[in-house]
């Protein structure tokens, strides 16, 4: 049984996890550059967070080291805190300049 689990985790080569993670990261990065709607930009940032999380988890499982998964856990917590603050900034932006266009944020310059 034990051997079965090991082969189950290792059937998929690590390279494929790495490539999938890079692909998701590339899509997220392209989305950040592509879209002007701030809420979509935030969502693309979440996508990039998750591609990195997947990479950490894959290495952690293949290396059988739980520390990688604890890292992923902390990344998720920081992402949650970041999203709450980011979305409240977004709502304030909508109330003050009546737009969710990222280009409008250049008003921050002094």
């Amino acid at each position, binding site marked *: 049984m034990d051997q079965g689990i090991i082969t189950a985790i290792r059937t998929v080569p690590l390279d494929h996890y790495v490539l999938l993670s890079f692909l998701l990261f590339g899509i997220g990065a392209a989305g950040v550059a592509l879209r002007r709607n701030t809420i979509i930009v935030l969502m693309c940032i979440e996508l990039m967070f998750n591609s990195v999380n997947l990479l950490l988890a894959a290495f952690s499982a293949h290396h059988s080291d739980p520390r990688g998964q604890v890292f992923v856990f902390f990344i998720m917590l920081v992402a949650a805190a970041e999203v709450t603050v980011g979305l409240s900034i977004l*709502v304030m932006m909508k109330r003050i300049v009546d737009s969710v266009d990222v280009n409008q944020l250049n008003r921050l310059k002094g």
Partner: protein
Amino acid sequence: MEPISTPHDYLPVLVQAAIAVGFVGFALSAAAFLGPRLHGRKKEESFECGIEQQGDARRPFSVKYLLIAILFVLFDVEVIFLYPWAVNFKALGAVGFVEMVVFVGFVLAGLYYVLRKGVMRIE
């Protein structure tokens, strides 16, 4: 040696998800094939009788609820820490208890701030 749960143990979840999706797909497509279809202004209203409906359900709601939703997310994430702690409660002993008391103390400080600011008061 206790048994280790493996990805194979999640097979029932997959089967259940497949059944759920399959039932929804089957019911929706069967309804489209079997039922008669009538179109008309009266027929497409949500309620045939009663109070006249106004607008649609997708209207913006008050900003007051935003803070409550955001605070829900923050406290929800904090509760996640309690699961691994509860599983390891005996192994961690008194030190683990003190660790969690400090953590929950900070969280309660946040809750006290929220209550003092009157965020939860919706007039």
